[in-house]
Structures are given as structure tokens and as C-alpha cells.
């Protein structure tokens, strides 16, 4: 990133290749709209280009890029006054696509159920679990992104996992 900051823009291509998938995964976990996620990934790199002079180089680049990703996501949904759909019929529709599959697809169904449970979490809890996943559970770095202590991050993860487990169990009973 330091080279990009110094004007070697070709190096941004390397950063793009390295981070496009984790960023896409983070956005996909947050909103489940692949086309929108591509727009948001593009916006992240647009901001990096625009504000590259602000990169201080004293911290982890991955932390910085996820900090930007989080802002891009918040800005987007604030702009369109987006409201999360919490419609049970929607879950049933999604799951019904998988109902006829045999037991060999059981694992895939569990993943589908987990994805649904994740979608039903409040945004802040969904976000902390996705950051934990894509930041490889580096809680101090996640604290830098969120502006809180490492201990506070661990408690947030604890509460989010607890709620995820509860929602998952409820979904299991429903379907």
C-alpha cells in the first residue's frame, strides 16, 4: 500500500487480487445481493484510490481496508434508507428450494440454515461475526476497526455467537 501511496498505482492491482474475495464475502454476508456486493467492493477501491494519502502505514492494511469496507456498507444503506426484510415467508421460500434434496445434501442445508440465521441477527452482531471470520479472529485489529477494546470485542463476539446459536436452533425446529 505504501507504494500505491507513493504513486505506483499498478500495485493496487495486487491488493485488489488479494482482497476482492474477502471483501466480497463480507459484503455478501451483510446483504446477500451479489450485484450490489460488487458495487461495494468497487467503491472500497475507489475510496482507497481517492484517499490513499491518508494511509499512515503504522497499522495493518487489512484492518484499514475493512474499516473502509464497513464505512462503505453503512454509507450505502444510510443513503437508500434501506430496511432489513425480516419476512418468515422469504426464509421458507429459500429453504423450500432445498427441501427435496437427499441426506447427502444435509451439510449444505445446514450451511443454508446458518446463512439464514446470520441474516436474522441484528446488523451489529452480523457485522462482528463477519469481521471475526474475515479478520481471522484477530480481536485487537477488529477493536481498531470498531473503535473499542479487545475485551469489548470478545464480549460482542460472545453475545453474537450466543444469539446466532439460539436463532439457528429456532430455525431447525421450524423447518
Amino acid at each position: 500500500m505504501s507504494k500505491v501511496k507513493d504513486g505506483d498505482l499498478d500495485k493496487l492491482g495486487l491488493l485488489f487480487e488479494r482482497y476482492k474475495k474477502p471483501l466480497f464475502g463480507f459484503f455478501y454476508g451483510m446483504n446477500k445481493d451479489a450485484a450490489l456486493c460488487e458495487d461495494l467492493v468497487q467503491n472500497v477501491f475507489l475510496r482507497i484510490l481517492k484517499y490513499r494519502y491518508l494511509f499512515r502505514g503504522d497499522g495493518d492494511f487489512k484492518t484499514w481496508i475493512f474499516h473502509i469496507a464497513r464505512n462503505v456498507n453503512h454509507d450505502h444503506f444510510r443513503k437508500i434508507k434501506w430496511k432489513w426484510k425480516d419476512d418468515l415467508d422469504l426464509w421458507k421460500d429459500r429453504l423450500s428450494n432445498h427441501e427435496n434434496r437427499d441426506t447427502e445434501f444435509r451439510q449444505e442445508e445446514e450451511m443454508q440454515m446458518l446463512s439464514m440465521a446470520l441474516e436474522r441477527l441484528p446488523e451489529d452482531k452480523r457485522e462482528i461475526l463477519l469481521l471475526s471470520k474475515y479478520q481471522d479472529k484477530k480481536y485487537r485489529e477488529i477493536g481498531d476497526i470498531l473503535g473499542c477494546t479487545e475485551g469489548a470485542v470478545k464480549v460482542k463476539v460472545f453475545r453474537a455467537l450466543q444469539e446466532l446459536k439460539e436463532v439457528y436452533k429456532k430455525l431447525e425446529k421450524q423447518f
Partner: protein
Amino acid sequence: MEQKYIQRLIDLYNTGQESEADRQELEQLIESGIVSLQDIKAFDAVDQQLMEMKTPEPSKNLDARFYEMLSQEKRKREPTFLKIFFSWREVGPKLALASVALVLGLIAGYFLHSSTPPDHQVESLSRQVADLREMMILSWLEKGSTTERLKAVNLTQEMTNASVKVTNALIQTLNEDENVNVRLAALDALKPYVSDSLVREALVRAIGKQQSPLVQISLAELMVALQEKSAVKEFEKIIESGRAPAEVKKKISESIQVLI
């Protein structure tokens, strides 16, 4: 706090028998770092699933848009001729080029004052300059940065008649360059040479090697313009592979309809 007491709290939580007060106490222990999240076995299954959860891959469209944005930004930052000439990082190669030009000038001066006919001297000088330019283009295409490779491809378009070496280098760039914009520029630069059957064959073979939707569509348009029926098989392979996005498949199908 005793280790036994802490372990009992963790066990209560893992077996789902904890009270609200136990849970709050556990949270405090986690916050202070005394208890690790990994000790909470009740989360093992869901946490592991979360880590293994796969997400779809972004499409090639994202790559195309990003590299287009990057090349636009680079074009905006393209320095002026004077800045390039006087910048210290660039001054070495420029100085070398200027020296070569000076030597060529001296040679030209020598020949102009010698007894050989003037037409022959000018022709010889032009050939040397063309050779020098060709060498520079080939070197940039092979080892240059993205900007230099783009410049090299653009320089070939200024040539009245490029040599086989240059067309081969352009074909290689079209097939192998990592940057979509450079590949697209190479395709444009090859258009004046489509009357050469070897170039046409290479373009048909290039269809199967392209992953970028933009290049695939440009090739499809060119093949239609050339009425190159031998391209149909290559296009069919792309459709059958199932890797191409829907818009590309549609465009290729239309092109096949025109060609057959």
C-alpha cells in the same frame, strides 16, 4: 478467583444450565481475558460452521470494472512531457535515448557529407530509426509496466507496416497479458493486419484463450466483421464451457447466427 470456580462457570454455560448472573460473570471474565472464547465449547459447532461458510465468488465483471477504473486514474495522472523529461527517475533512459539520437545524427551527418547518393543515406537512416523503435516496442511489451505495455501497443499503430516480429508480439500480448486493457489495445492494433492469414488464424485461436468478457465480445465483433466462419467452433466451445456470463453467451450466439 479460583480456577475451579471459573471452570464450573464455563461448564454450566456449556451445558446450558447457567443463570443470568453466571452469564454476566462469564462475560466479565471474557472481557478481562481470563476466559478465552475458545473455552466455550457450546459455540464450537456453530463457530466452525461459520468459519467454513462459503460465499459466492465475484464475477469477472468486477475485475473489468476495477482495471478500467485503475487505468482511468492512471491516465489522469499521466505527467506532461517536460515533467517526464526532467524527472530524475526517468532521466536515465531518456538520456540514453537522446545519446542514441545524437549518434544517429552524427552518422547521418557523416553520410550526408560523404560521396554516396543522398537517397540511399536517408533510407539507411530511416531503417535504423525504425529498427530502434521496434526494439524499444518489443522490450516494453515483454518487460514493461502496464502503462509502458499500453504505450508500446499504441506505438505499433503508428507504424506503417509492422514486421512479423511485432505482430507476433501483439498476438502474444493478446493471449497472455495480465491486463484486460492491454489485451484490448493489442486486439485493436492487430486489426490492420487481418488480411494476413497467419494473423487471422492466430485471432481465431485467441478466442479460446480469453477469460475476459470484454475481450471475448470484441473478438466476436471482429470475427463477424471479417466473416471468419472458422471462428464458429471456438465460440461454440465458450458457450458449452458454461464459464461465460449470460451477456457474453448472448452476444456470441448472435455472432454465430451471423457467421453460419
